[in-house]
């Protein structure tokens, strides 16, 4: 069964460093998402991406965050200058099309620890 894959599974970084989290969405999907879950809290929406541009973003997704689809398969989340509060599990997700009946499928997550 096709799945969303993410790398790395776990990254430890120093505060202020740049981090890039990588995702390979399901191949025939058109909509891509990043979510995150801070330990003990709910899963939160960060950003959605369609047709090579951001279609929606949350308040969390400030200027320190960016997304890119550098080629036909990868979808990346960059955090320019990490803060302690960026420590979380980051989930990539993809969806085939919009509308009812089209589910968002999640990757296994990338656990980011900022020290």
């Amino acid at each position, binding site marked *: 069964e096709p799945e969303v894959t993410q790398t790395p599974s776990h990254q430890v970084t120093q505060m202020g460093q740049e981090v890039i989290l990588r995702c390979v969405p399901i191949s025939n999907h058109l909509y891509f998402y990043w979510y995150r879950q801070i330990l003990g809290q*709910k899963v939160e929406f960060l950003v959605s991406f369609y047709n090579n541009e951001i279609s929606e973003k949350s308040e969390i997704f400030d200027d320190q965050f960016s997304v890119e689809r550098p080629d036909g398969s990868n979808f990346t989340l960059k955090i320019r200058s990490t803060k302690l509060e960026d420590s979380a599990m980051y989930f990539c997700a993809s*969806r085939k099309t919009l509308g009812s*009946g089209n589910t*968002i499928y999640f*990757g296994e997550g990338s*656990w980011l620890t900022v020290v």
Partner: protein
Amino acid sequence: DQQVKQNSPSLSVQEGRISILNCDYTNSMFDYFLWYKKYPAEGPTFLISISSIKDKNEDGRFTVFLNKSAKHLSLHIVPSQPGDSAVYFCAASARGSNQTGANNLFFGTGTRLTVIP
């Protein structure tokens, strides 16, 4: 702003009995609802969904009920099995007002289900 609420942080059920997980929402624009199951350090796994045009959807042991007037949905698992022990998230999305709206999901805080053998 908590648009999707799961008021029970945890639930324990005996193996073989029914598990009922509840979810409430506030946004009347939501038209698609999903349940995800999540194990620690793993991504949410899609379980079952329901469109707002239906009030029930069944898939094997899992049934989701939607009460639009009450803005409430529930997930029934019967019979419950020890392998069902996980955190269950309710999620909802609304069709965007424009064609580029990506219908992102709003998640509840989750309910930890423990099925006791």
